[in-house]
């Protein structure tokens, strides 16, 4: 039964797409605990941890920042997403369609699909760094934006073709494989930390503290990298899944929860993947830097292989692949919402092609932190719109679910909330130099305010009642 439940959520044959989930299909907290525990140990973890090291995060800032940032992320899921999910019990897309209209959702789908393509591309590139080890492939460096060698392009394109073909075949086998590998991958991250600390000469609690502060996260960024403070760590940990919590993508998942408290179940995944795994992969990178002084090479495959052998390299391939594959599949689904008459396999093939081309550019890996922040930021305003519609429509005197209740396929307040919020964030970045990691918080409040004000003008409650 549990299998069927999650197949419904992830598969193309999603049930209750346009109706609330009935009481008989609801699930308890345990179901969500298991699911979230597995899904946050992904290929991205092999990149994010090392990037924190490269950006010169200090040890204390990292640990405290991750504890606080992840806690804020858990609270966002539990207190913002879950209550709406368990009250409305609808998918994000249908909820958004009722508020913003089909025509706005099409644009949302397009942006979502593009972001999925780039995320999958970065994961194919991560896998390629491990696949290229036996061929002595020249690996990308921290400052690379363009492919270094034709060999890199060929490796990435071949890998992209394989991943795309598997995605065309369907989703469930890859999903099952990912589930099989999940416990092993989590252990590999623990092993990486233990082996890495051993190789850095840690033998006691005192030496652990000194090695952490002076060797691994010594507060000095690598050449060409900006320095990250505790605020960067807090905001990145909080907002790296911004699209899922305050962006409301996880309405689709949590609508199956019996109680809104299931939102707290995400803590297992977040603290395994975004605490243990980021710290472990950072330690691995520090070992690599110790052994290769002054090296600018940034390739998760060789980094893991050097410390853990073949198990480390395979873990990188599997983590990258099992992240890229469903992401391509989901990008295909998002695009199919825009082009419903085009066959699924054609859409998936096109998405795979775009993804493979994107993967050729190492910039996607080297700038993964920025990309992840951008991905969340672009989708977040629509989550704010759903939040404002749910909590403020009655209190502030405008009709809820404006598009549905006005019989329209287009809601100007929703579209303007999206566009103007992004313009506001771009302005903060361009004119005031505020980094992308910090734009989500002010942007969310701006999106809520714009939507409430414009909805009061466009969909006033009194007018509705009079009509």
């Amino acid at each position, binding site marked *: 039964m*549990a*299998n069927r*439940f*999650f*197949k419904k*959520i*992830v598969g193309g044959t999603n049930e209750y797409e346009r109706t609330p989930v009935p009481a008989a299909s609801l699930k308890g907290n345990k*179901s969500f605990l*298991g*699911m979230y525990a*597995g*899904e*946050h140990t*992904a*290929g*991205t973890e092999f990149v*994010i941890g090392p990037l924190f090291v490269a950006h010169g995060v200090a040890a204390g800032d990292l640990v405290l920042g991750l504890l606080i940032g992840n806690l804020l992320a858990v609270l966002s899921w539990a207190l913002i997403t879950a209550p709406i999910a368990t009250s409305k019990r609808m998918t994000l897309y249908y909820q958004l369609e009722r508020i913003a209209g089909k025509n706005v959702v099409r644009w949302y789908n397009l942006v979502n699909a593009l972001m*999925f393509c780039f*995320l999958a591309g970065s994961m194919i590139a991560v896998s390629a760094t491990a696949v290229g080890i036996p061929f002595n492939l020249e690996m990308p460096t921290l400052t690379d934006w363009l492919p270094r060698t034709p060999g890199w392009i060929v490796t990435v394109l071949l890998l992209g073709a394989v991943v795309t073909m598997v995605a065309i075949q369907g989703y*469930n086998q*890859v*999903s*099952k*494989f*990912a*589930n*099989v*590998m*999940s*416990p*092993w991958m989590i*252990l*590999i991250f*623990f*092993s990486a930390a*233990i*082996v890495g*600390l*051993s*190789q850095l000469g840690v033998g006691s609690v005192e030496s652990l503290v000194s090695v952490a502060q002076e060797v691994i996260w010594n507060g000095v960024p690598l050449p060409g990298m900006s320095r990250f403070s505790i605020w960067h760590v807090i905001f990145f940990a909080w907002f*790296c*899944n911004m699209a*899922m919590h305050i962006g409301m993508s996880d309405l689709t*998942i949590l609508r199956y929860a019996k109680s809104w408290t299931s939102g707290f179940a995400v803590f297992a995944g977040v603290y395994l993947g975004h605490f243990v795994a980021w710290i472990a992969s950072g330690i691995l990178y520090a070992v690599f830097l110790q052994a290769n002084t002054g090296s600018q090479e940034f390739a998760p495959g060789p980094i893991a292989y050097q410390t*853990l*052998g*073949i*198990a*480390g390299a*395979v873990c990188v391939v599997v983590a990258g692949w*099992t*992240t890229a*594959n*469903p*992401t391509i599949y*989901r990008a295909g689904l998002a695009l199919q919402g825009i082009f419903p008459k085009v066959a699924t396999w054609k859409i998936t093939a096109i998405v795979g092609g775009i993804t493979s081309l994107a993967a050729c550019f190492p910039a996607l890996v080297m700038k993964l932190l920025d990309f*992840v922040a951008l991905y969340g930021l672009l989708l977040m305003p629509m989550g704010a719109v759903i939040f404002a519609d749910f909590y403020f429509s009655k209190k502030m005197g405008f009709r809820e679910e404006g598009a549905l209740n006005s019989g329209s396929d287009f809601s100007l307040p929703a579209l303007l909330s999206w566009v103007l919020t992004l313009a506001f964030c771009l302005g903060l970045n361009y004119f005031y130099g505020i980094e992308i990691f910090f734009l989500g918080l002010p942007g969310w409040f701006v999106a809520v305010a714009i939507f409430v004000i414009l909805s009061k003008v466009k969909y006033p409650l009194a007018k509705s009642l009079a009509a």
Partner: protein
Amino acid sequence: MKTLLKLVSLAGLTLSIVPPVLLFLGKMELDSMKLWMGVGMVAWLFTAPFWINEKTEEGRSKTEV
């Protein structure tokens, strides 16, 4: 048969974490550790698929970061 598969899988997981601990304690060399971790990986990879999906939830795989 399924019990045997589970036992081999468990051995695979054990070989993925115990050798690193032994290395940390100075009881094992790095090359041996890598070898045993490789053996553990193979043991898990070739036995877990036959039973694990019957027990665990079919998760929404990793589109999240």
